[in-house]
């Protein structure tokens, strides 16, 4: 995946860190200090659509076949997460209990074109 830099317009991963202290949540969330709410943004022109390695998948192969045989039938391509990981939280619940949980698929590690 590609990280957005400068004024890149192509599909890339935009880093965005939410500091829990800044939003006043540091009293009930013990760990971690913040949440990397990265997201995918940018254009997926047809020549980038489905290039293996960006979002290589079965659908990509099918799309390539459609494109090869009938260029105007190709559908739009979207910039989506291709790799994600859980957000591990250690926090107080409203009864003062300490809860640890891993929320799946909360952090985007890489983006690509469908």
């Amino acid at each position: 995946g590609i990280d957005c830099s400068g004024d890149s317009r192509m599909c890339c991963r935009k880093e965005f860190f939410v500091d829990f202290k800044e939003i006043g949540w540091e009293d009930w969330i013990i760990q971690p200090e913040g949440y990397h709410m990265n997201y995918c943004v940018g254009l997926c022109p047809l020549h980038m659509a489905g290039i293996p390695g960006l979002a290589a998948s079965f659908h990509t192969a099918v799309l390539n076949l459609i494109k090869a045989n009938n260029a105007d039938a190709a559908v739009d391509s979207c910039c989506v997460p291709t790799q994600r990981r859980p957000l591990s939280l250690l926090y107080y619940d409203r009864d003062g209990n300490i809860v640890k949980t891993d929320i799946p698929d909360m952090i985007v590690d890489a983006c690509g074109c469908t």
Partner: protein
Amino acid sequence: APKGVWCPACGLTALAPAAQRDVLIALAKQSILSKLRLQDRPNITQMTSRGALLTALRRTRVQHVDAAISPGMPRDGGIPRLRPGIGLQEYEILSFAESGSSTSHRVHLHFRFAQELAGNTEILQATLYLFWAVPGPGTHPVTVRLLQPDPMGPNMTVASETQLEVQRPGWATLDVGQAVQSLFGQGSQRLTVELEVLEDWGSPLLASHRDSHWPFVAAQARARMPHRVQRR
């Protein structure tokens, strides 16, 4: 945003950076709260002491010592790093005792579990940790009763009773998984533990170390999977 600048992904006029930041932070808050099944962020009225929290984390880890945690336990008394999780949403809960009514030979302890967890999770395991104070040599019998609200009235019924023989000060554990699961099943969120000792022993808990040896329940729970219909 300056004229003519548009969002590369959707073609709409791009938001000014400050407005975009506010939108993203609001989205982050909503996303975390919804995944924790919380309506709003909890208001913490009483904080668990750092000593009790660290002791509880150490006790619950002592069974399955994890190389990533024990050498990594920071010397500044910080909370050990969390290990990366796996796909399914599971919970580890530490519930510290609230003192209930007590007499010279009987102590009541209450453990609460939040509605968000009680209503939507199945208990995989729950263990009660007690730190005994022992007045002197010899064996001291203690009766541990798990009480639960009587569905038919205001009293409490005994869900289970265990006789323990305490010989020396230290931690003792008791499996309370079934009791907690049946509480959740009844829609209750409070487990009451009654400790009874012989008259002349006094309080069986090490009250003088209240902050770091306070009783707690360590539970592991898993979010109930929404009912899925498989269609082929």
